[in-house]
């Protein structure tokens, strides 16, 4: 068991004037940890993490006790949407009322919305850090189609168009390739032949010209990958060496062997082009590729089969690790219980230790695991695709490399 002590910031108030204090923090936590509400998506493991509820120490201090040490629980805490809720308002109006009229402690307060169309916020004068309030108000409008989203900036109807893609960005005078990486890869199934042979997995990694792929398909808005994107890991991507790759395949005795590769258009539209390039690259080193495209539902089902029933090569683009959840992503990609068609008992022992470490020790172990994985090559990581946003000329945002976009960071030039 480990106790986390939180000292709350002084002088923070809710948009309806209620103070932010230990009582509010506890009430908000109770909502998140409510077993009834927890039956919805992703919260079960979160609730089971805690030995008890949040305990109030004094007016501005609270304690949380987790069953096991878990250095990433703060990230999980945020991703699940822990937000401070005004206790008095909830007591008077019920929790449901907040879904129609959200009240928080942020720099902008909710004023109005129309479902599926817009949400309007205005600057909250009681905010504790006025220097990050760059705007008098903010309006979010919904435009599902990326090309139209881009054109709203061009027509002057919007100033920031979220995730429009490299192609649409060319139609605008200003855009930014920020974080929110999608990492494109091929899972190399180490439980079946021929990818159970490390030489074959290494050869596949050597067969891909990552720089050329990134330049040709993503037009400079992606980076060649050595490991999943946005990680504090120091590794060089495999070099492009088709001759060495062909030699490895021959040495392993698999020249002319047929391998099955599946793909689905699960996250990025470029998956089709990637599949074609991969096929050509692997045929060039002596493998025969049988390429299959799966519908989204089939794709999910095949990806969830026992490892040995899955194809040798499975193309996958993921947003793993974007929220700082490195250990969770590692376990999912490379754990025997994960989804990565890779099981290595030697590495399996490290997960539990990893989630208890902090600081440099943690970084060192992550680096060590990553190096061992890189050498064993259970995956061919290819491209880390950035999100591209359209901008009005007067904006000079300073966006972090993770997937969060805060209004604090969207600044005027």
């Amino acid at each position, binding site marked *: 068991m480990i106790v986390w002590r939180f000292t709350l910031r002084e002088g923070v108030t809710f948009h309806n004037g209620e103070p932010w204090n230990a009582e509010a923090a506890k009430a908000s936590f109770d909502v998140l940890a409510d077993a009834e509400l927890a039956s*919805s998506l*992703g919260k079960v*493991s979160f609730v089971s993490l805690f030995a008890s509820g949040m305990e109030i120490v004094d007016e501005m201090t609270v304690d949380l006790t987790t069953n096991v040490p878990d250095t990433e629980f703060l990230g999980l805490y945020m991703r699940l949407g822990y937000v401070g809720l005004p206790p008095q308002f909830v007591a008077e109006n019920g929790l449901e009322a907040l879904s129609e009229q959200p009240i928080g402690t942020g720099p902008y307060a909710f004023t109005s919305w129309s479902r*599926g169309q817009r949400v309007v916020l205005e600057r909250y004068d009681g905010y504790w850090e006025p220097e990050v309030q760059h705007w008098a108000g903010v309006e979010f*409008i*919904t435009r599902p*189609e990326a090309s*139209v989203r881009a054109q709203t900036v061009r*027509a002057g109807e919007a100033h920031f168009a979220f995730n429009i893609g490299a192609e649409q960005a060319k139609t605008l005078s200003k855009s930014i390739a920020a974080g929110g990486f999608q990492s494109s890869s091929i899972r190399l199934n180490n439980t079946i032949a021929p990818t159970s042979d490390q030489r074959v997995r290494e050869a596949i990694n050597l067969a891909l010209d990552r720089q050329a792929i990134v330049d040709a398909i993503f037009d400079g808005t992606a980076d060649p990958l050595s490991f999943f994107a946005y990680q504090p890991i120091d590794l060089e991507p495999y070099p492009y060496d088709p001759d060495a790759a062909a030699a490895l395949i021959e040495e392993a005795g698999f020249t002319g062997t047929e391998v099955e590769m599946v793909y689905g258009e699960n996250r990025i539209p470029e998956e089709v082009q990637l599949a074609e390039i991969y096929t050509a690259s692997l045929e060039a080193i002596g493998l025969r590729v049988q390429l299959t495209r799966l519908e989204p539902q089939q794709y999910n*089902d095949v990806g969830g089969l026992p490892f040995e029933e899955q194809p040798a090569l499975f193309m996958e683009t993921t947003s793993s690790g974007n929220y700082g959840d490195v250990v969770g992503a590692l376990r999912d990609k490379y754990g025997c219980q994960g989804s990565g068609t890779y099981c290595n008992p030697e590495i399996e022992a490290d997960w539990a230790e990893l989630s208890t470490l902090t600081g440099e020790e943690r970084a060192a172990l992550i680096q060590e695991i990553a190096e061992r994985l890189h050498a064993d090559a259970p995956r061919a990581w290819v491209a880390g695709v950035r999100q591209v946003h359209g901008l009005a000329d007067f904006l000079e945002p300073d966006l972090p490399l993770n997937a969060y976009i805060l209004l604090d960071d969207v600044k005027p030039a």
Partner: protein
Amino acid sequence: MIAYLIRRGAAGAAVMLALVVLAFLASHYVGDPVNMMVDSEYVTDAEYDVLREAGGYNRPMHEQFWDFFSGAIRGDFGDSVWQNRPATEIVAERLPATLLLGGVCIVVTFMVAIPAAVISAYWSRSWVATVITTVTTGFASVASFWVALALIFVFAIELKWLPTSGYGQWQHMVLPVIALAIAPIGRFTQILEASVTNELREPYVSTARAKGLRETRVIYRHVLRNALIVGVTLLGGEVIFLLNGAVLIETIFAWPGIGNVALESAQQRDLPVLMASVVLVGLLVVVVNLAVDVAYAAIDPRVRLT
């Protein structure tokens, strides 16, 4: 007439029944519905089991089907996975926007196609007729999403007369209506023109003229009335076209209708909402077709509904 309505009503009910069964099969047999609804990266096996149980997906298939079916009949498709309120409510509140867009499209189609068809048929050898035929052939052939993007480029970006997209004021309606109505205008004009041309050759036209009726009266009272019967028949098909087209057009213009919510729920893997929108659109199509058949009899006394 009443016997006919009962028979057609029964046929409509059979179509709806088949649709509900297909919707169920598509969502439960093609793949695992829980797998479809969650992002496996962020869901552990224990959570997966909880979701399976919460959605009742671990029960025998016939029980699940019965629940789905009896719910569907009552208009209950369960709660939205994302919004935690009834799926039917979410879809129903989008219905007015789609009906508004579709209704205006139909009115505009008639307002443009009828005069164009009459002019083209009446002065069939003039250059005006050639222009109308050429333009309407083009209209009938273009893809609505391409028209939509071209309209945005011209009227919102270059001329800045209209907003690119959105909902709420009349300006927001202009571009989606044009984009959606262009193909029906093309088809309607061509078919009406052929129909008017045929009617103009009928003996009753000569009789009417011989009685000394003014030409406009001959055209609008006699010729058009008969020619329009074919238009009403086409209406059923055009409504299906408009509902299909709405998925694309509503998405492009961020129009908060059923097409928009159908695509959104498919992308968010919100199965109850997707099912509700599929079944509601099916119901609309069945009802409109029934109404068209009844209207057909009302307009053309030769048609007896028995």
